[in-house]
């Protein structure tokens, strides 16, 4: 497949992407091909290399070897940087600013005009159901609300490719359902979403799931494919089955 065709079809392409820390392999020769408009779930236990992979893709970490392309541009994707949204695991919002100020700050970083920002803010606040708390300091919000603000900040510039690192950690079950509704809505609008989670049960809602263990991608496919191949009744059992094969 030539590069132009690949750019047309895949939001993310990686070739032998590898990251080592002092000789310790965090991500091992990763090959990802994620089509545009996919809701991709990266699952695996803590320390399996999910966050390191995301950080290499968004340009926060330099790979030890290998390469990655986002929408056809080699990482770090400077030309496409305003088409990429990122929600870090630690939320990455300013707690001493209000919800509105956080959104405005990050929209300013993407040079979004005031008029466009106002429209976008109204849309996002509606989506995360925080219109009433627009003026509240983030430090006065609950953990779940902060997660919603963090998600809104990642979406403020209406990116085409969205990386969400553990977006549902510490979020109550009811809110998690709401989050997944947002993710599906974004995908319906043509966005590509890559999220990490160690909640196997919720990964079943993804279009494609990549299973990671000790820095390696041990399996990839739709949730139903993964469960069918392993004969497992759920993704957790499927993961354990693949992990057993990897050990063997």
């Amino acid at each position, binding site marked *: 497949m030539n590069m132009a065709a690949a750019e047309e079809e895949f939001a993310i392409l990686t070739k032998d992407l590898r990251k080592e820390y002092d000789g310790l392999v965090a991500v091992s020769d990763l090959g990802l091909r994620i089509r545009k408009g996919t809701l991709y779930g990266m699952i695996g236990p803590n320390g399996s290399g999910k966050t390191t992979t995301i*950080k290499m893709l*968004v*340009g*926060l*970490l*330099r790979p030890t070897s290998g390469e990655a392309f986002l929408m056809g541009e080699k990482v*770090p994707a400077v030309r496409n*940087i*305003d088409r*990429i949204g*990122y*929600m*870090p*695991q*630690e*939320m*990455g*919002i*300013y*707690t001493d600013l209000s919800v509105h100020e956080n959104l405005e700050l*990050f929209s300013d*970083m*993407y*040079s979004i005009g005031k008029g466009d920002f106002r429209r976008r803010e109204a849309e996002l606040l509606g989506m995360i159901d925080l219109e009433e708390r627009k003026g509240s300091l983030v430090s006065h919000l609950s953990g779940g609300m902060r997660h919603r603000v963090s998600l809104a*900040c*990642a979406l403020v510039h209406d990116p085409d490719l969205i990386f969400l690192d553990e977006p549902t950690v510490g979020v109550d079950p009811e809110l998690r359902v709401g989050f997944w509704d947002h993710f599906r809505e974004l995908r319906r609008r043509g966005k590509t979403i890559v999220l990490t989670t160690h909640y196997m049960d919720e990964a079943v809602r993804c279009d494609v799931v990549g299973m990671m263990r000790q820095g390696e991608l041990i399996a990839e496919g739709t949730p139903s494919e993964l469960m069918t191949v392993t004969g497992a009744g759920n993704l957790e059992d499927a993961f354990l089955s693949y992990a057993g094969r990897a050990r063997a």
Partner: protein
Amino acid sequence: MPLFMIAIFGYTFGGDLREVSVFIVNLDGEGANGSISASIIEDLATRDTLAIVSLIGPENASSSEVASAISKVEKGEIWAAIVFGEDFTESALEALGNMRQGMPAIPSEIVVHVDSSNPNVAQAVVGELQISLQKTLVSEYGLIPPIVIDENRVYGEGAEFIDFFAPGVMGLAAMMVTFMLSIVSFVHERSYGTLDRLLTTPVTEGEIVGGYALALGFIAFIQSCVILVTAIVAFNIQIVGNVLLALFTIFLLGIGSQGLGFLLSSNAKTEFQAVQFMPIVLFPSILLAGVFWPIEAIPDFLRPVSYFIPLTYAVEGCRSVMIRGWGIEEVWPQLLVLAAFAAAMLLLSTYSLKKRR
């Protein structure tokens, strides 16, 4: 760390002044041998409080040498010019004779053209002169004739200790606030993930560092204004020079200090390690930069460290502007050092942020 702190404190606190640079112009007509002026100078040279950089006269000394010595004080090259008059010994001996006969004695005079921008130093110069006068005259003549030390303050006329402290406190406060805020803010940015998010936006590393520099430099500027106004209103400090130039000096220090905080914090492996940099940087700055006592009071082996501390140049520059009334043409060396410090810190911080990837 506690050992480091107590060692610096012990060596610097309340140290005696040493090697205060002075010129001596001896116009005393009695010549080098046997004159009272020569004995006093000889005694001054036995102690190390004053460093006699140049001794002119009595041969070939003229009033032009006095003007030249005063000019050195005006340029800040030396702290004082001590001038013995043409008939100093003659007048003193005449006064001694009169005293022995119970007749009124006319005092002779030593003129000290001194830079009183630092009251400690000015007091030390006059004090050392008085000690030598007493020692010499009592040992040689058994009497102390009336000798007036005429203190001509080249700078700092009417200056008190608060005038000396105010620029130092301004600099110290600006450095502490910007350095600590930048370390704490950066630790916060790291641990809350905002730095990662910032670095994935179109904002560059240089813009992040520049934004911090402007914000914290502005805080240092405002804080200095508050200190200055308080010092003027409550303590009636005198400002001879351009206040804006003094504030600009502090602004440069603020930018450099925040850059240093940013640099150290970005290179720290953990937040705990970053916070540990605070006392390591602040403690020597507080004690060795000439904020509370002159650089001349710092022991020789520690004094070179003072010249590696940017606060030293900010305090010196600010004092020169506020007490001496110097302008940019005189304080440019201090401004240059501070500007170079600020530029180096900003560039290294930017590089350090890029290197984190």
